[in-house]
């Protein structure tokens, strides 16, 4: 009842009195919860360290500078490994994601009752486990090294690419499918002539995007022993060799910038 009748005129308010009170109550409760949490966190924090943190940071930075530039040459192999983990992992992940996406999409799945939930389950379980956790498990299973990293990155990519791809399949224009169907084409031809051209742009941008993410993730899986530059980073932090750590961080930054540049180029060329 946003219209309020006075004696001789009527006026309008967005909310009635009841809704006004409810809004006020929600804001009050929100503020209350925030203050309580702040108090709890504050009493569990040793503020002495926090107020000292800028000195610590400067100290660390001082140890990192100047970087030990000669050390870079020993990093060439690990960073190459990292790039390979990302690239091969992404390739494996997308290749497995394609059939899964077709099985999961509402309009292409062969069976909505049985196969679709199964395929969706594969996608969800791959997505819900972080690649570092996959790497931890795989290092235990296949042993430390590049292979564990590749499989970890691949497993995580299946879910990501599968989900985005099946959503793209569900959004295709059915008119184009109908037209191909009307010519007497069979199921496989409808797929290659009707569906594939429509999802190809989505597919390329999804896999390029995932490759971009995977370069960064591949640097992390090394921390748990799954190959690449992360192993080196873990070792040097353990040795407190900060001048070497700074070289590693710079190398990672360069690698990520490089991947950004490449993905931008590919996107421009394809789409």
């Amino acid at each position: 009842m946003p219209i309020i009748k006075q004696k001789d005129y009527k006026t309008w308010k967005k909310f009635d009195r009841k809704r006004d009170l409810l809004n006020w109550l929600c804001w009050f409760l929100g503020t209350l919860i925030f203050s309580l949490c702040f108090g709890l966190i504050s009493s569990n924090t040793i503020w002495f360290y926090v107020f000292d943190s800028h000195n610590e940071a400067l100290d660390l930075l001082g140890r990192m500078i100047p970087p030990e530039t000669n050390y870079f040459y020993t990093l060439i192999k690990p960073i190459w490994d990292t790039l390979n983990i990302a690239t091969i992992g992404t390739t494996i992940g997308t290749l497995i994601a394609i059939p899964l996406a077709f099985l999961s999409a509402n309009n292409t799945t062969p069976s909505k009752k049985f196969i679709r939930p199964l395929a969706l389950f594969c996608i969800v379980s791959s997505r819900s486990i972080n690649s570092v956790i996959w790497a931890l498990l795989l290092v235990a299973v296949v042993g430390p090294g590049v292979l564990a990293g590749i499989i970890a990155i691949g497993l995580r990519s299946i879910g990501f690419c599968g989900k985005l791809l099946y959503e793209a399949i569900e959004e295709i224009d059915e008119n184009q499918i109908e037209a191909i169907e009307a010519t007497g084409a069979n199921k496989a031809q409808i797929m290659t002539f009707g569906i594939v051209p429509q999802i190809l742009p989505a597919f390329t941008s999804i896999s390029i995007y995932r490759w971009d993410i995977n370069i960064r993730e591949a640097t992390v899986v090394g921390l748990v022993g799954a190959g690449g530059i992360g192993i080196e980073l873990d070792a040097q932090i353990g040795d407190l060799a900060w001048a070497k750590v700074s070289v590693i961080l710079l190398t990672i930054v360069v690698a990520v910038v490089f991947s950004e540049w490449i993905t931008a180029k590919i996107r421009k060329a394809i789409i």
Partner: protein
Amino acid sequence: MLKTINLKKVYPNGEEALKGINLEIPNGQVVALIGPSGAGKSTFIRTINRLVEPTSGKVYFANEKNDITSLNKSKLRKIRRQIGMIFQEFALVERLSVMENVLSGRLGYVGFWNSFFRKFPQKDIEEAFRLLQRIGLEHMLDKRADELSGGQRQRVGIARALIQNPMLLLVDEPTASLDPKNSRQIMRLICELCKERNLAAIINIHDVFLAQNFAERIIGLKAGEIVYDGKASGLSEAILTNIYGEEDWSKTVAN
């Protein structure tokens, strides 16, 4: 050539789109199907090639024994090759080239791997060149379909239907997305091509004026039933009122 007997369609939500259509179309006849939105025009032509499965009734195609509604999947695909279809929103595969779109009309005759690698028989390719020349788009064959204008796209749609070498054309609102000039050109092209090839056609169209001008026979559909079946010149104010509802039809009839 085409004969439907008591053709019915009830959608899962209970809507009765077709209430028993009996219709016979001889060889080479161009029929315009008019009627208000929701009368069942689109459903009717889609039940003929079973893009929409009819609920009951029969569709005889080519001869009295060939009932489309009782065919299995692979025989249905063979029949679909002989029925060309043209759509309102053109329904071209937007990201494929004009040539690929035209050749996709031959998919029913080409194996999967040959179509996958775009290896079409030489005579299909020659026919595609001929058709593109006939519709005046031979210089566009390498363009992607989404680069064309509306009128050009519909021409490609027509070429795709005709390269099937069909006996029957099903045409669903070919002019609804076009301006008046293109509408007339497209209707003229469809009718000319039907005459050249002695093709029968069912053209859904809600523009009464275009229907009168281009079709020899007009069928009026209203709420899933045929309420008029006769010559274009036979349309009167009373008949149009019956099909579409109360409105001043005097000017339309005068044309």
